């Protein structure tokens, strides 16, 4: 381990003779249009992009390594820090993976609330995408509108989890607690008014000639390239590949919900915009169905050695107190094995690969996050285009640096 395998940061081409118009431009890591600490090394011929090299790792915190030193239940709060714009999807994916290892059965009510919240989380993610994407293009107004609705969603998160962004509301075995009494009414109120808000964004952007000109025909990605490069989620569906894990490999009772999966065969930045906009309407439908059919019952699995007992029970039952003490101090053992749980989050296919060696700490937690793979496609999308298009493309692939660098 003494060797230094790192090559120079970038193999820059040898200095070209004067008169050559090629130029290396460093974009980021601190740049308002790179959505975080993304650094792009762009080779330009005049204003035309010759190559784009993403340099990542500025936000690397070693979350996967940290997970190995924590109990299974202590990993949950780490997961929502990875993709901080879609926190509940992270929680859900990790919990599903561990529950698969444990063979836990989750009560219906918990599953439906999980679906409801994951869809709200997707809306949250899409709203930030829409606001920042439009802002990158120069339509500053939309950002103020989408963040108004995002604030409503964050208040709903706060009401159930006590936290606006780092929710950690889903726990291994169910939810952390029953939502407050009027919470479902508040969701209903939000979801009734939300479709007209989508119309509002659409009115601001869809017919806007500047927005159209900046997006249409820009950043084309063919379905073959998308599959080869591991692109998932809305960018993949905008390239004409009809795959959505919510429908095709359902988890957490998604099979009980009816929704459409919007696709487009155009494959450009505009198609990705349209697909996401329709996806927001579909998410609204799913939330409405979850509200209409919300089953009653407990929100935690009946597994006293894994799920923390209710606070009230701890004060009256000796057993509950013992279980609580054991879980908090020693964790719980998970049978040895390896599982991969995939799911569809706001940006694409997320996956948690959890390896257990039979102890109370995960032997290995690997997170597959969509942005990491999607970033590889940026050069394919931008080659031969103007540098201004690069900004539109970064916005349209909707990356979060937290999940790229982990």
């Amino acid at each position, binding site marked *: *381990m*003494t060797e*230094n*395998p*790192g*090559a*120079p*940061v970038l193999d820059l081409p040898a200095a070209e003779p004067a008169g050559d118009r090629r130029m290396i431009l460093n974009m980021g890591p601190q740049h308002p249009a790179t959505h975080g600490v993304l650094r792009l090394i762009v080779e330009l011929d005049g204003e035309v992009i010759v190559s784009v090299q993403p340099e*990542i*790792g500025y936000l*690397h915190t*070693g979350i*996967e*390594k*940290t997970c*190995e*030193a924590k109990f299974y239940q202590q990993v949950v709060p780490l997961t929502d820090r990875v993709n901080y714009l879609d926190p509940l999807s992270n929680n859900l994916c990790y919990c599903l993976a561990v529950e*698969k*290892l444990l*063979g*836990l*059965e989750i009560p219906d009510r918990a599953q439906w609330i999980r679906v409801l919240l994951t869809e709200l989380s997707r809306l949250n993610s899409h709203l930030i995408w829409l606001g920042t994407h439009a802002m990158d293009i120069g339509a500053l107004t939309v950002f103020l509108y989408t963040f108004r609705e995002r604030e409503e969603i964050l208040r709903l998160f706060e009401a159930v989890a006590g936290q606006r962004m780092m929710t950690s509301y889903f726990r291994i075995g169910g939810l952390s607690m029953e939502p407050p009494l009027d919470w479902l009414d508040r969701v209903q109120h939000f979801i009734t008014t939300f479709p007209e808000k989508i119309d509002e964004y659409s009115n601001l952007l869809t017919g806007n000639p500047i927005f159209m000109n900046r997006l249409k025909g820009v950043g084309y990605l063919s379905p073959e390239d998308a*599959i*080869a*490069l*591991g*692109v998932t989620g809305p960018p993949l569906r905008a390239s004409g*590949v009809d*795959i959505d894990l919510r429908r*095709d*490999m359902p988890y957490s009772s998604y099979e009980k919900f009816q929704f459409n999966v919007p696709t487009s065969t155009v494959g450009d930045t505009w198609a990705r915009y349209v697909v996401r906009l329709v996806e927001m309407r579909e998410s609204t439908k799913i939330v409405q169905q979850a509200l209409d059919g919300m089953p009653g019952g407990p929100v935690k699995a009946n597994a006293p050695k894994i799920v923390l007992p209710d606070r009230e029970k701890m004060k009256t039952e000796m057993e509950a107190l013992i279980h609580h003490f054991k879980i908090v101090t020693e964790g719980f053992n998970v049978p040895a*094995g*390896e*599982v*991969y749980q*995939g799911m569809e989050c706001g940006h694409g*296919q997320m*996956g948690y*690969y959890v*390896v257990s060696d039979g102890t109370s700490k995960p*032997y*290995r937690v*690997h997170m*597959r996050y969509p942005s*990491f*793979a999607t*970033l*590889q496609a940026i050069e394919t999308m931008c080659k031969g285009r103007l540098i201004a298009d690069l900004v539109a493309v970064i916005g349209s692939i909707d990356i979060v640096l937290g999940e790229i*660098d*982990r």
Partner: protein
Amino acid sequence: MTSQPPTLAGKQAVLEGLPDHPAVKALEASEIGAWNPQAFTDARFDFGELTLTIAADGIRAACVVVQKAGYNFFEDMTAVDWFPASPRFQLSYHILSHAFKERIRLRVMLDEADPTVDSIVPVWAGANYYEREVFDLFGIRFSGHPDLRRIMMPDDWQGHPLRKDYPVEGYR
């Protein structure tokens, strides 16, 4: 407790239990390219997930075979360090089929002495960053990779943080 599908341990059990599985069938009796069916050494069906163990020198050919069998989407790849056991490193490739709506795991075991394996970037270009990540954090080399250099850690970093003998809080 949910009713999990029964576990099938060992290659023989999987061949008998899942005789019509497209990936198993393709790997067991295939004449595609450089693929040698002997390199398909072990299999396990557990938690509803199929794991196929491939000899280290056969992974690229195996990827071509499963790709032709309909497993068209490279989803994820990572390593597990089983220190101090031998062989020390396990590589797990997760391949998704858009047609069958199903995922398989290809698994490769590597010795500590020379952790080198063929890169699968020629098969799926999207494996590029994943192999760089494993190279960076585990120190496993991928021969044939177009641009194998560190991706997460700084270029002058010493050691490979996700190895089990690397302390969680780092060297101080």
